């Protein structure tokens, strides 16, 4: 499964929403994810991909697509190293 699919699964599992409703344009508010859901998702994604997502970066995510892009970039950087 690609990075986007894995993050979608993590977010759907934590928020208990149907993963099919999570699109790249979905905001955390739209999928009814509260601050704890978001933090749990960040920790789970960090553990899954072996990366760190600083709070200041996470706060910039406007929607699911931003979250996925950030993780894809970090994973690509990690693979280069």
């Amino acid at each position, binding site marked *: 499964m690609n990075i986007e699919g894995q993050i979608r699964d993590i977010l759907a599992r934590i928020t*208990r929403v149907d993963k099919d409703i999570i699109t790249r344009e979905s905001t955390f508010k739209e999928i009814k994810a509260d*601050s*704890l859901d978001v933090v749990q998702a960040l*920790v789970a994604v960090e553990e899954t991909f072996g990366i760190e997502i600083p*709070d200041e970066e996470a706060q910039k995510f406007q929607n699911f697509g931003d979250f996925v892009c950030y993780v894809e970039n970090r994973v690509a950087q990690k693979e280069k190293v």
Partner: protein
Amino acid sequence: MARNGKIRVAVDAMGGDYAPEEVVKGAVFAAEKEDVQIFLVGPAAILEKELAKYRITNGSTVHVVGASEFIKENESPVDVIRRKPDCSVAVAAKMVKSGEADALFSAGSSGAAAISAIQYIGMLNGVYRPALVGSLGSFASNTVMVDLGANVDCKPHQFLVFAIAGSVYAKKFLNIADPKIALLSTGSEETKGNEAVREAYSVLKNSGLNFIGNIEGGDILNGKANVIVCDGFVGNVLLKFYESIGGHAQVWTERKLKKYPPLRALARLLFKRLFPATRIRKETERQGGGILWGVNGVVKIAHGASRAPQIANAIESAKEAVKAGVVESMKMELEKFNRGGKS
């Protein structure tokens, strides 16, 4: 669970308005019972110094477990995960997860305790977030209410878990074989209430539980339902209002009887004796705080203002919850729904 017949309670020794002094003192009181072993979690140097004030009489039943950090009053509960994963409440939760302790107790930030429970102990299968359950006391001695404030914004499926938790509570602590469950709303009809309540009605109606429909505020104390389900926002507002009734009624009555001192004195006496009736009770009569229902382990939280006697009672109550097997009972009830695909 218990080792050598002792229930092991991990105490967040830095949580509470009077921590660590009153928490350590309360833990020492609780440890006077033979069947409990206490782990005080927090900065070791501070706790050992505090513990040295007491002479532990029944062997080494109070131990210190080091945790370098703790959650301060002004810090976000979410910091337990991101910034302070080794704080006292998180370490205590991890002890429950690893099997080193049977229960966690905290009088600190209830949000931090709940988040530690969710993140480090984990929820039972089918449960999204923990819930607080309480009995309405003497005015409605066969009625419990869920949620009392752990979940301010709820998703419809959470109401089902609240109903199951309340049902387990009513069976375990009130000895009601088949509790009647109702949803608190603005009318008895299925179409009444806000969107979450209307969706919850449908979930509960199809749950197979003994769901009797909606009840209104006026039905809360008449015994119509044994388990009243509502979101934590409504539950918490109602809890605080209910607990304040006695005090306000006393002030009002004494003011009205100002010109009749003997009657005023009698009224004062009556209120003092009778109006703890409006106190919400959780788990036992001598409770101090409440259990977070739905966590895969016993987690007991208490008011931040708790002093040593309340801390000791709460630890005792956590121990009783372990003995009563509340987590196992909740797990069994949830499994019925998970098997049937209903939760």
